[in-house]
């Protein structure tokens, strides 16, 4: 009877602790969201991102024309002519519809390349920081080697090898992103590992898996979220740069970068092609940068206001 009571008592205690932990997490999340929503520029960023995501998902409903329909009789029409809001490109394709569809490529590449780089970088960073010793030296020297390349150059060289296409763009930008994540995560792991509670867990014989998943990972999340949000903006610009150089997404698939590439060739006769496609990149990247700055401020414990 006494044993059963004790068991129940333990269960209740565990349950209370669990509830307390959940409440703490919810409180933290609520305060983060409150801080974020109080930041006007972050809200502007959020609105821009939402519009871009909506246009990517609902492109078929938001576009006014078939983005790939060629009509040479309507080539290089100015904005507003013949019902083409942003005008047409050199093949007479509706520019507004191509830009709406182009948001799909930007969002896919931005999110997927960032995720790929983050996952691989986090794994490498955790192994490097947690294991230390020769493993750390090998991984970090390799990361230093990758850091020695200007980001876009690394992506360009990889695209030359992989060949063009959406999948390869994601792969090239994602891989080129790995070193930044690996360095950030390694630094954070080293800090967390040195803290007393972590040392105590190691001394108590807790498994590496438990320490990493339950204790190290939650502590490295904040800088990763901040960097990741800003990194999406960088990935969008990189995709546009690769497509602009003719190495990324190939026409007729519309991407803001390849629309800009054709806009470059028709800069004198049809400047609207380059202007609108570039503005789409600028506004979206600005949105992610504003939002990223807001996330950083909201997660920064030093900034109370």
């Amino acid at each position, binding site marked *: 009877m006494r044993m059963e009571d004790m068991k129940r008592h333990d269960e209740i205690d565990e349950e209370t602790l669990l509830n307390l932990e959940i409440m703490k997490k919810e409180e933290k999340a609520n305060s983060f969201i409150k801080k974020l929503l109080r930041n006007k520029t972050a809200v502007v960023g959020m609105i821009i991102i939402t519009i871009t995501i909506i246009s990517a998902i609902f492109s078929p409903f938001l576009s006014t024309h078939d983005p790939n329909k060629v009509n040479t009789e309507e080539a290089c029409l100015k904005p507003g002519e013949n019902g083409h809001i942003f005008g047409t490109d050199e093949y007479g394709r509706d520019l507004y519809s191509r830009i709406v569809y182009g948001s799909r490529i930007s969002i896919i590449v931005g999110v997927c390349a960032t995720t790929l780089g983050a996952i691989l970088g986090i794994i490498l960073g955790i192994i490097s920081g947690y294991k*230390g010793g020769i493993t750390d030296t090998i991984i970090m020297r390799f990361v*230093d080697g990758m850091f020695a390349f200007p980001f876009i150059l690394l992506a360009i060289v990889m695209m030359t090898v992989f060949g063009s296409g959406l999948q390869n763009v994601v792969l090239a930008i994602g891989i080129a992103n790995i070193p930044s994540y690996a360095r950030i995560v390694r630094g954070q792991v080293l800090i967390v590992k040195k803290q007393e509670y972590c040392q105590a867990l190691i001394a108590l014989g807790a498994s590496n898996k438990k320490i990493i998943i339950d204790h190290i990972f939650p502590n490295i999340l904040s800088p990763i979220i901040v960097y990741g949000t800003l990194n999406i903006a960088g990935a969008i610009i990189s995709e546009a740069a690769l497509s602009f150089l003719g190495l990324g997404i190939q026409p007729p698939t519309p991407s803001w970068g390849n629309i800009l590439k054709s806009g470059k060739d028709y800069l004198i006769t049809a400047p609207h092609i380059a202007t609108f496609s*570039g503005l789409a990149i600028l506004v979206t990247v600005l949105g992610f940068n504003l939002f990223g700055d807001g996330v950083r401020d909201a997660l920064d414990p030093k900034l109370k206001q």
Partner: protein
Amino acid sequence: MLKYTLKRLLQLIPTLLIVVLIIFVITRVVPGNPAAVMLGPQASVQDVEKLEEELGLNNSIWTQMLDYLKGLLKGDLGKSYYYNEPVIDIISERFPNTLLLSVFSMFLSLLIGIPAGVISATKQYSKFDYITMVLALIGISMPVFWLGLMLVLIFSVKLGWLPSVGIGEAGFIDGLKHIILPGLSLAIISAGVFARFTRSSMLDIIKEDYIKTARAKGLREKIVIWKHAFKNALPPIITIIGIQFSSLLSGAILTETIFSWPGMGKLIVDSIEKRDYSLVQGGVLFVAFVYVVINLIVDISYALLNPKVRAEFEGTKEGGK
């Protein structure tokens, strides 16, 4: 300081070896036979075999790597297939142009960014501060290749004030006219970074007690800001200057293609189109080398300006990453 510099120089060796390894592996895993890719689909089997022999592609990968490393030690980066000239000669002709463009842009961006950041910090939350910070963020978010095109559209196509292509070989004024647009397109973006960074660095310093003391002593505000605050906000700004110089180099890759500026960026992009892999390999390796050297200079100058960092580095066994 000497110990620190030597340590950083020694760290450079494995990094550069890994750089060579990465480039070597990447250029060797090109799908298909690199010689066949370089010669194009119309090439005969004999031509492909001849080029394979010339490039040493018949040897094992290790022999190729060793030969390449031996060549590198002698300053030999191979021979360009397209230009039929040593890669190092082509690079030494093109690199000064990229350097010139980067230095010019750096000068312009510092001229715009640093004063904007300092004034923003001294007038925190004023209209000037808000406008500068919004402009800086727009600058950072702008794709350099689009900004370049827009500058061409406005200043070359519409106004006809400045030339949009080439480097200008008819004297100083002609050269200056040609460098303004590519230089400005790179500088605007970097100026945004400098303005933001200088502002936050200055804000940290302005709150310090010694600045309050300087003001209490009755020093003029200009002297307090520029001589006391700015001087102390400088070390982190110098790091950013180094990082920005590296990104100017990568930005130049894209800018040069728009303005047909005969530098390293245009050379690499052109050689990718011409499938001149020796030139791609050599060009990328050279840019990476410059990148590493700039980072080294930044680290050393940061340590020189900030003895705390140096002491930390020398005192820690794990340090330096």
